[in-house]
């Protein structure tokens, strides 16, 4: 058995209102590719940030080579040989590859002048080692995501990292690019580096990881060798219940009449010829890779961005939408992807957040009727089951799931027909997820049409009546829910147009 390089014991980290890590353990051996799995909100990202010194742990101990250490800031982590490659590559797009690789540890001559030639040739060597023939003078922004990732790996190597953390590196890659990444990762392992590989995808795990640790709800669930581990064991560990329990059954069938339809909606550079419809009481998922144009389509429908051509129909009426207020007036509501930036005023109370979307409702004139306001807020908070002491509580004091419920309550103040939900369960814990699904089912039963944007395939399969897949701004597949993850993924990465189940 090889030796333990990095060990974390009893790590706890609390943010206002959320316990992000609850006494978790982790053991990394040298020359190992160690998978770290868990649902969104399980605490993986926070855990990584503790290791890389972005966050300080509230409690717990970290050992490197058996010695207790403290990682106070990212600089400490780098000095200890720990480097991370983040999910969304954090590069400087206007600088060259070399500058990106050596950012923060440039090579200087004695007089403090940057030694460009040295750095360029070193960068070239690093890239060659990784099997890439890129010119290090290229601008970072001109590269593909996969190429940028290789640069990030080179950057990690340039700091002499022994422990490399990859945070969902395959999320935005095509199959071929994944293979390339696997090859590089294995090469690094063979050179004696230890790697923590975070991923949602089971393929990644079975393909390259030898060991896996699972987190759920900010807690450590267990760790196992990958060999001999079955799919369902893993799901059970991650979700904590059977998949069928996770997604509540539909309470009603979609009705035949269309509540909403778009025809040939286009916006240059974002999406083209997008046509689909949503029926009364139906949950339609819009899925695809990050950057496929899903959110852009939804924001155009809601009037945040302008669409250039195409038609929007709401129940047999063609409508024009120029801003969110008009969209809401017509009966379209939008639950934004970024809850904290786009959805909530964190410094405000639950009540004021709920009533903000439709202030005209409270009192006829220019004044806000506060009695009416608090009555509506209390009713809706109860309806969506927000856990709080009272509607006076600040939105910032609630957990992710409850914050999401505030936004749902806010939508319900308008008289809606279609509710667009952009990644509604992103970053909420499993219990709250279940409740949000339940709310979606209830909304569908009450006759709302629901358009859900989601990247999570299990969620898409578990909740939808129909699924729409987009790739590079175009719809590549519209299908009923009797489909497989593989089929959806294929449609998400190919340009082929195919219609089924319609």
């Amino acid at each position: 058995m090889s030796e333990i390089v990095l060990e974390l014991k009893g790590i706890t980290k609390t943010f206002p209102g959320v316990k992000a890590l609850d006494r978790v353990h982790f053991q990394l051996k040298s020359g190992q590719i160690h998978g770290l799995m868990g649902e969104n909100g399980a605490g993986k990202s926070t855990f990584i940030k503790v290791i890389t010194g972005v966050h300080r742990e509230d409690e717990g101990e970290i050992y490197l080579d058996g010695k207790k250490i403290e990682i106070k800031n990212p600089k400490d982590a780098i000095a200890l040989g720990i480097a991370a490659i983040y999910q969304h590559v954090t590069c400087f797009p206007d600088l060259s590859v070399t500058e990106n690789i050596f950012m923060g540890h440039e090579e200087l001559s004695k007089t403090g002048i940057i030694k460009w030639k040295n750095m360029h040739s070193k960068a070239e060597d690093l890239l060659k080692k990784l099997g890439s023939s890129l010119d290090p003078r290229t601008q970072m922004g001109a590269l593909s995501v996969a190429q940028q990732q290789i640069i990030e790996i080179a950057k990690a190597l340039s700091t002499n990292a022994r422990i490399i953390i990859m945070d969902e590196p395959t999320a935005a890659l095509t199959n071929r690019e994944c293979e390339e990444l696997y090859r590089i990762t294995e090469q690094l392992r063979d050179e004696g580096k230890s790697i923590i590989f975070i991923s949602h995808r089971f393929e990644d795990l079975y393909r390259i990881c030898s060991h896996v640790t699972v987190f759920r709800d900010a807690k450590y669930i267990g760790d196992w060798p990958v060999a001999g581990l079955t799919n369902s064991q893993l799901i059970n560990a991650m979700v904590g219940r059977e998949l069928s329990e996770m997604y509540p059954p539909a309470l009603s069938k979609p009705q035949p009449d269309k509540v909403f339809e778009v025809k040939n909606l286009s916006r240059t550079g974002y999406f083209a010829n997008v046509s689909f419809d949503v029926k009364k009481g139906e949950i339609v998922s819009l899925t695809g890779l990050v950057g496929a144009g899903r959110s852009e389509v939804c924001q155009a429908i809601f009037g945040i961005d302008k669409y250039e051509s195409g038609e929007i129909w709401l129940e047999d009426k063609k409508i024009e939408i120029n801003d969110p207020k008009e969209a809401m007036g017509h009966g379209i509501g939008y639950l934004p992807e970024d809850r904290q930036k786009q959805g909530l005023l964190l410094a405000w109370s639950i009540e004021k957040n709920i009533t903000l979307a439709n202030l005209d409702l409270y009192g006829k004139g220019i004044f806000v009727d506060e009695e009416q306001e608090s009555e509506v807020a209390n009713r809706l908070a109860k309806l969506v089951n927000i856990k709080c002491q009272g509607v006076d509580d600040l939105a910032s004091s609630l957990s992710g799931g409850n914050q999401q419920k505030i936004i749902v309550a806010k939508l319900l103040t308008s008289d809606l027909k279609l509710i667009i939900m952009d990644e509604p369960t992103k970053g909420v814990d499993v219990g709250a997820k279940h409740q949000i699904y339940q709310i979606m089912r209830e909304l569908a039963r009450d006759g709302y049409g629901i358009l859900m944007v989601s990247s999570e395939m299990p969620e898409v399969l578990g909740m939808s009546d129909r699924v729409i897949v987009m790739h590079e701004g175009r719809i590549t597949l519209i299908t009923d829910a009797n489909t497989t993850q593989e089929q959806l993924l294929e449609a998400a990465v190919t340009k082929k147009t195919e219609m089924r189940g319609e």
Partner: protein
Amino acid sequence: MNKIAAKLPSAGQDSFVRKYLMRWEAILFLILIIVNVFNAIISPYYNFTGILGATRDFMDKTFIVFPMAMVILIGEIDISVAATVALSSVMMGVTYNAGNGVPMVVAILIGIGTATLCGFINGLVLTKFKELSPMIVTLATQTMYRGLAYVILEDQAAGSFPGWFQYFGWGSIGPVPFILICFVVCAVIFTLIINKTKFGRRIYAIGNNREASRFSGIKVEKTRLIIYTLVGFMAGITAIFLTSRMSSTRPNIALMYELDIISMVVLGGISTSGGKGRISGAIISIFIVGLLKYGLGLVNISSQVLMIIIGLLLVISVMTPNVAGKFKEARRQRMLHDKLSIQQK
């Protein structure tokens, strides 16, 4: 997890002390009392009648404090107000003296119209070109407006207004100056608008989180346009009172007014990052600055000393929320920690 969250202190459940006495407005009020006591001690002539009279001297610019509070509440700034006052006043003077027997009422309306237009132009530029910073845009327009005032009047004075026009600056009802009454009316109206109306709620929302406000269906750009136009309009009101008090106008009047006005708003506890602060604080700070100036004037202390004192107050007022925030956060963390350790036991 939710239970912990629910038990954390939040604004809704603060004690009386925390709710009223720890507020910045309470501190301001205390400062105001200190200023009065101080003035009474250093000068035997400091009395109520004197204070009433003194309001004539500092009230004119304060009409702009209210809409400026709105601008700062949405996280922006308008430094063109003084130039707007000057251009408006010059337009008033030039129109009345044009020689065609233009009635003063028309001249006043043209003055107000000019000022409103100035504000509207600021708003229009800022809402059409959203990426521009309000600081730079209003810096540019203030140069323009002031320049225009110089072009129109060429460094002369225009005056000889009719006698009744003096009433704005010098008239009084009983012992109370007319301008003070107008100020109180404006203060009541703007306090109601900012605290009680839907428009006021939207201003706070935009200052708090512009993007979330947009997603909530608030017409952010329209609101901004209205606020900047309102700033212009109120600058027009200021121009009337100022011109009346001076009984003539020059292109260089109201110089540096923008700094006084912004100081009063910020001293009042309205955060320049937007969304935080109360109009009541700004109203108290108007009197702090005004009365301090008057009191020091009575004993012949130079206005430079006054500037030092106001600068000091400003630094304190800007720092206070930060310091208070740190205390609050520390208290929060401590409570959280206690909760967690209890649970673990």
